[in-house]
């Protein structure tokens, strides 16, 4: 039989939930199972407040990288599940500490116990003392000292009702809520830096984020399309089961360009994008639109223009980046691994469609008058019929 390890997963915000807690726990467990589905040799159990996995030792490293991509985990530890027997725990502690101690010459250590099974006869400090003193007995002569505040090695013991887990590490997870626990939303994805970050942030709030991309082919080549496919795939690593809708936008853009006021173009494009996104959201029961807009970042993102765009839809529009500056958005993009792809030089809009002086404070009546000049409902419906629907998991 292969050597086994136990992974102890601590929830993030789910811990604060009351009566809905079961629902969130189920979501998280489901997501973890999907993320780790590459191994069929894992058993799962969820005693109160924790998720425990039993994995083969050889899978530990892979498991660590994968768990770090599952939103809703405060932290996790990989250790060993055993009976709450002080002798056995101390022996394991000695086995872990000794090699490190020998190579370092001296080491400060402590034992920390958490006892959720209150029926266990000893209190946590008592367990600490029992285990700690046994380890000290064997290793104090080799340079081991006890230091609770500045410990270099922490042996942790979690005594649960059904099992006890011993470990010496804590990996931070991806905080937030489990994907899917909040519902489905639709993110307007461009090839830029911002929209992937906004999608990621909503995934960490429990949303399953689907994507819509407005495609400029043939004015621009397939490069933009390919890039968005790659970005969607990267964000999907945090959630799975997303759909990408690719909407041909050329005809709509040409109509706006040819018939509407030049300075209003960008706001009009965005109003149409929102309308198309709303149609998709209605069809698929998505509950909100997500964009990467950040207040004042470019001409189309002033308060007036954001308002002029939002008012075309009755759906909630969330802009998780609205109060962030560019630097922190970039840092986030680097952190989640989308930055490199986002900055690849790929035109996301042909200059022929860009106005020389875009309006910064658009007036809704003027926009509506412009829209009266084009058959936008027809163009919208036509774009929707030609829309390509891609399952991001299959990419």
């Amino acid at each position, binding site marked *: 039989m292969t050597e086994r390890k136990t992974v102890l997963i601590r929830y993030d915000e789910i811990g604060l939930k009351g009566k809905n807690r079961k629902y969130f726990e189920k979501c998280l467990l489901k997501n973890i199972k999907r993320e780790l589905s590459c191994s069929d040799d894992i058993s799962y159990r969820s005693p109160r407040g924790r998720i425990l996995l039993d994995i083969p030792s050889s899978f530990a490293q892979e498991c660590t990288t994968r768990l770090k991509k599952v939103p809703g985990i405060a932290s996790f530890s990989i250790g060993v599940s055993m009976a709450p027997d002080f002798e056995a725990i101390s022996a394991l502690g000695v086995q872990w500490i000794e090699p490190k101690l020998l190579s370092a010459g001296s080491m400060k250590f402590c034992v920390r116990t958490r006892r959720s099974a209150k029926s266990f006869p000893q209190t946590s400090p008592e367990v600490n003392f029992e285990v700690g003193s046994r380890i000290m007995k064997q290793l104090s002569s080799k340079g081991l000292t006890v230091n609770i505040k500045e410990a270099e090695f922490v042996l942790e013991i979690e005594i649960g009702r059904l099992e006890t887990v011993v470990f010496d590490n804590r990996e931070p997870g991806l905080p937030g809520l489990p994907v899917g626990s909040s519902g489905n939303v639709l993110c307007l994805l461009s090839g830029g830096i911002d929209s992937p970050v906004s999608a990621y942030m909503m995934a960490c709030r429990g949303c399953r984020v689907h994507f819509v991309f407005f495609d400029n*082919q*043939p*004015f*621009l*080549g397939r490069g933009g399309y390919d890039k968005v496919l790659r970005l969607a795939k990267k964000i999907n690593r945090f959630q799975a089961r997303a759909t990408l809708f690719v909407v041909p936008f050329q005809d709509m853009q*040409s109509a706006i*360009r*040819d018939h509407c006021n030049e300075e209003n173009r960008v706001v009009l494009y965005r109003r149409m994008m929102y309308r198309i996104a709303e149609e998709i959201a209605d069809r698929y029961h998505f509950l909100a639109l997500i964009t990467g807009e950040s207040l004042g970042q470019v001409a189309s993102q002033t308060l007036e223009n954001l308002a002029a765009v939002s008012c075309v839809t009755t759906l909630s529009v969330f802009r998780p980046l609205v109060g962030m500056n560019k630097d922190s958005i970039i840092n986030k993009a680097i952190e989640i691994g989308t930055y490199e792809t986002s900055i690849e*030089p*790929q*035109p*996301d*809009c*042909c*200059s*022929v469609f*860009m106005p020389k002086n875009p309006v910064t404070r658009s007036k809704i009546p003027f926009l509506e008058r412009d829209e009266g000049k084009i058959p936008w409902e027809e163009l919208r419906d036509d774009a929707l019929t030609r829309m390509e629907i891609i399952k991001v998991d299959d990419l």
Partner: protein
Amino acid sequence: MIYLDNAATTPMNGEVIERVQETMQKCFANSGTPYRIGLDAKRLIEKSAESIAGYLQIPSTHRLLFTSGGTESNNLFIKGLCFPDKKTAFLGLEHPSVTESLAFFKQFGNDPLSLLPFQVEGRLDLNSISTLNENRVKLLCLSHVNNELGTVNDPLQVASALEKESPQTKLFLDGVQAIGKIVLNPDMWKGLAGYSISGHKIHGPKGIGLLVYDSRLVLSPQMHGGKQQFGVRSGTLPLPLIMGLETAIQQAVERSEQNQKHLENLSRRLIQGLKCLQDQQSELNIRFNSLIDADATRQSPGMVNFSFSPVEGEVVLHHLEQKDIFVGMGSACSAQSKEPSKILMGLGLNEEQARCSLRISFSENNTLEDVDQFLEAFGVAYQTLYPTFLQKA
């Protein structure tokens, strides 16, 4: 599919692929090892280098190094010879692997001399050579055939002008776009300090190229290691790619006269066709950036670059792509990369003209029919797009 971007790269020839495959399967040994199979590999490489020298009629005064391609050859020669303080000059219309190598010297206080004021029709005006003497320039770097325009700096003429007016200036030519497209005159070698060649531009493999240089020159290595290739360019030699390169060069040279004629026919047809289109469509205004009606000492027949304001080249490119026709361009229309082609701007075009341009480049695989189909598709695309761009202007 109609592929008209042969200056970007070319498809490999069947015989080249066979040769590469065969070598991959049969000869894996490291040519630097002392046992039989290694020595066999070494012998194959030596033979290949000899054959290449033979095909190109490279004299024994010149040495031949295998590199990863044109960019490496240009970097190796320019940096290897002139780093950090030897004075260099260039026309300013070269490929980035030349201009950026030279620009690298700037941080050491060694600014290369740009001869852009002396460019005429995309070529170096030979009357400017005395400037090189005045500025004590040690190395002049030029394209043999310009990579966006196809204009030619004739090595014989440049070398003889240098000999007369600036004898201390050596000549380096980036020959990547020349071989296979125009007939190389073997007399050119004696006037050349260095010359670069790339495999994939002549239906050979990617990842292999040549640097031919005067063996009396000392190049400091840019890649340090096992001291292969006289210690100038370390790294285990890629035998299969070298075999492929040899076959590609052999075919390019053998067919070069016939190719040059074929390419001349194609470009003539294209130029003629564009002029006809212009007569038919009153709104179409073609400006040829390449030379038309020029012989191969001034213009490569493999390339035609032209502008057609106000419609942007990139947009036409993608419309042609939909018809399965692939062409090249020197500039981008994106909102992100606003830089139009430096070469076209250097030629004196304004930004719009530079943006509204395409580069058609031929290879022996193209036919007159390809040209006709391109012309038809281009005419349609232009007509469709013109109203859109008219408004913008």
